[in-house]
């Protein structure tokens, strides 16, 4: 029952036995001392027994041992009073030593909690499955474009397997928790998140380090299975990239001891984000060799603040401000018939709002959740090298400003059933300032509606329709997007934050 005891006593008895053996060896030649030897052995045995007794009593006074010991009082209390449910109550569990500090976790505390999120959908759009590519090419959001064969936003007509998430998390020790989130798809495995986070820092401080989703805004830090819609909102997709702002680095957060929930965060990130802090680095092929700066990280700094006032049990509100700056952003515009290398810096800022009303209906019935974010991004770039015909002048300045917003509402129409409506706009004030003039871009828009059935917290089926008008070179292209999505969660998955 107590594995510690035999292990703890063994060294002592071994030592005593050795001592006895040594004594016996030294005593052997003197046969006359045999009586003396026996006496000594007896004394040693008594001493050993006394030591063992002391050790046992020590163990019994320890909490773990006390709990493991089925004392007569304890068992009468448990089995007679509780299980049978009759007889006089044992007043206040007299004699029970409730010293259990721990919880009753269903996961083995030594093994990580492991969960797998299955995600897939049937998709159909009115543009022969090109909707993902059209969105990537939305006017005013041109960015790094390298023909490296890496496909973005590709949506097949018909059945699609989205990322399967494999999540493992556990407490490393007294000081750190760690989480690993692997995104598996048909092309391979990607590390979405792999970070450690401190457990014990004082004063409401926490440090997260590794690769993680940035805490800027609201939806960025959420995994796809936490979203209320199938797809990432357009402004995030176009300005943070199709994986969101997800980078390696360090995050410091602080929750000050205020009556109103406040979270302040600062992040130093490597700066490896295609949309915001793209890094090409070394360019060794002539004639562009050395055209781009090589700069070690961190190249991206972000900050955020979130405030959540207490509005009683029915309401929850969280509002946030965020921003960031990338000291290096490099773009390669490879159009197949030449290429331009651009280099400069970017910054972004935005605000995020979430309000939830929950009257306490069964399984989310009557719960209303409104959520919106606005994002603004500026890229200050200049031409570092040009292979175009005719070539752009090196040093040519170009400043592009882009913005976008989304607003969505989700309502629990019945227990376990929700319906949602979302409006997205990207490029409301998008423009590109170049020495030869300014280009104003059309905005792209999308409206989406969905119905979701959540049989339990672990499964979901969702039907979504979206109508997108994506700005292109020749006006807006309108098309429909249909999704029928499933999401299943198995294993021990951590609770979700607000």
């Amino acid at each position, binding site marked *: 029952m107590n594995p510690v005891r035999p292990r703890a006593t063994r060294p002592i008895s071994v030592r005593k036995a050795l001592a006895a053996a040594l004594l016996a060896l030294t005593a052997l030649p003197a046969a006359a001392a045999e009586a003396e030897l026996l006496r000594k052995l007896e004394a040693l045995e008594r001493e050993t027994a006394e030591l063992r007794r002391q050790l046992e009593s020590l163990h019994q006074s320890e909490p773990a041992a006390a709990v493991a010991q089925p004392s007569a009082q304890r068992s009468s209390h448990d089995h007679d009073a509780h299980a049978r449910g009759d007889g006089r109550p044992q007043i206040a569990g007299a004699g029970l030593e409730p010293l259990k500090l721990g*919880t009753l976790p269903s996961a083995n505390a030594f093994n990580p909690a492991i969960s797998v999120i299955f995600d897939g959908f049937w998709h159909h759009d009115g543009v022969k499955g090109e909707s993902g590519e059209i969105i990537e090419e939305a006017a005013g959001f041109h960015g790094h474009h390298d023909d490296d064969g890496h496909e973005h936003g590709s949506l097949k007509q018909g059945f699609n397997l989205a990322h399967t998430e494999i999540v493992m998390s556990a407490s490393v020790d007294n000081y750190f928790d760690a989480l690993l989130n692997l995104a598996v798809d048909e092309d391979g495995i990607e590390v979405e998140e792999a970070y450690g986070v401190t457990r014990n820092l004082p004063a*409401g401080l926490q440090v997260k380090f590794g690769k993680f989703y940035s805490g800027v805004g609201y939806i960025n830090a959420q995994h796809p299975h936490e979203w209320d819609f199938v797809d990432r909102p357009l402004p995030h997709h176009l300005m943070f990239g199709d994986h969101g702002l997800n980078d390696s680095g360090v995050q410091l957060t602080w*929750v000050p001891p205020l009556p109103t929930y406040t979270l302040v965060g600062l992040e130093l990130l490597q700066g490896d984000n295609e949309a915001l802090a793209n890094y090409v680095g070394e360019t060794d092929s002539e004639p562009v060799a050395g055209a781009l700066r090589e700069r070690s990280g961190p190249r991206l700094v972000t900050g955020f603040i979130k405030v959540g006032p207490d*509005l009683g*049990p029915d309401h929850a509100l969280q509002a946030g401000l965020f921003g960031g700056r990338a000291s290096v952003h490099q773009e390669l515009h490879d159009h197949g018939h030449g290429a331009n290398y651009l280099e400069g810096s970017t910054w972004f800022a935005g605000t995020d709002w979430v309000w939830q009303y929950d009257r306490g209906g069964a399984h989310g019935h009557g719960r209303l959740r409104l959520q919106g974010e606005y994002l603004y991004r500026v890229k200050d770039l200049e031409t570092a090298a040009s292979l175009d015909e005719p070539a752009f002048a090196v040093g040519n300045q170009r400043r592009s400003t882009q913005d976008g917003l989304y607003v969505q509402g989700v309502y629990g129409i019945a227990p376990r059933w929700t319906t949602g409506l979302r409006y997205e706009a990207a490029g409301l004030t998008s423009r590109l300032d170049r020495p030869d003039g300014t280009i104003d871009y059309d905005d792209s828009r999308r409206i989406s509606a969905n119905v979701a059935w959540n049989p339990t917290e672990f499964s979901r089926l969702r039907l979504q329709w979206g109508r997108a008008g994506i700005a292109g070179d020749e006006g807006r292209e309108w098309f429909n997007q249909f999704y029928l999505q499933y999401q299943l969660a198995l294993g021990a998955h951590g*609770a979700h934050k607000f």
Partner: protein
Amino acid sequence: MSSPVLFRIVAATLLLLFASPVWARLDIVATTSSMGMLARVVGGEAVRVSVLAPRDRDAHHLQARPSMLAALRRADLVVAVGAELEVGWLPAALQGAGNPRVNPGRPGYFEAAAQMPLLGAGAAADRSQGDVHPHGNPHIQLDPERMMTAAVALAKRMAMLAPHDAPRFAANAERFAQAVGARVPAWRAAAKPAPGVVFHHQDGDYLAAFLGVPVLGYIEPLPGIPPTARHLQALVQSLAGHKGVILRADFAPPQGADLVARATGWPSRALPLEPPLDADTDRWIAFIDRWVQAIATDP
């Protein structure tokens, strides 16, 4: 103003601030109003208690609101039910609160269900069997005995955090146990003729076991899974020839219970599953009175 004078003023202010009785109190955050009642009754004047879950909510399905994080950030002690009742929101709230004093495993984190044996413990951890709790049924708040055990355990825990108040906590817990214990014969006597009960969820099991009233079935086919027509039909058939009452928590949807009530002619009642948010011993006893009366309703 010379800096030593300034220092003295600041030091005196800080001293006054921290020496005032408001600061000396233990700041306790309870997850449910039952746990809040225990903390209030056992802690008395030495504690300040706030409760996270509104009375009329299913504590399985809360969400971690930002205001919960603010409360947990300041807490000296979290009093939770445990046995994974709050698993959907409390760990996330604790993680976001950044207050290591109340992390699970620390003296500042108390789970009532971890202090006692539970009904249904050791069930297979298999989600195809519904919303199961492998460590046992967490709905201990209707069990007078287990609440007494929890009160004594909580007094010991509070004593670890505020040793000079230990005798007061122990006396308060004892007083609670005496008051509840004095009521037990009346509860058992009232429930003696009760032929049986059907619950919506397994949340009345402890009270039924305590009173010795048989549980004849559940409206839910599996814990946490909404009733199906087939299940209700089978339930009604199995109840034929029996007598009893149908009870459910007031937040549980009424349709299933109503259907069974119509088919069997049994009375059906909805009751709050938690005492009032600011409950003391008397109001908690009154809350149990209501449940006992409901179980003892003449069918």
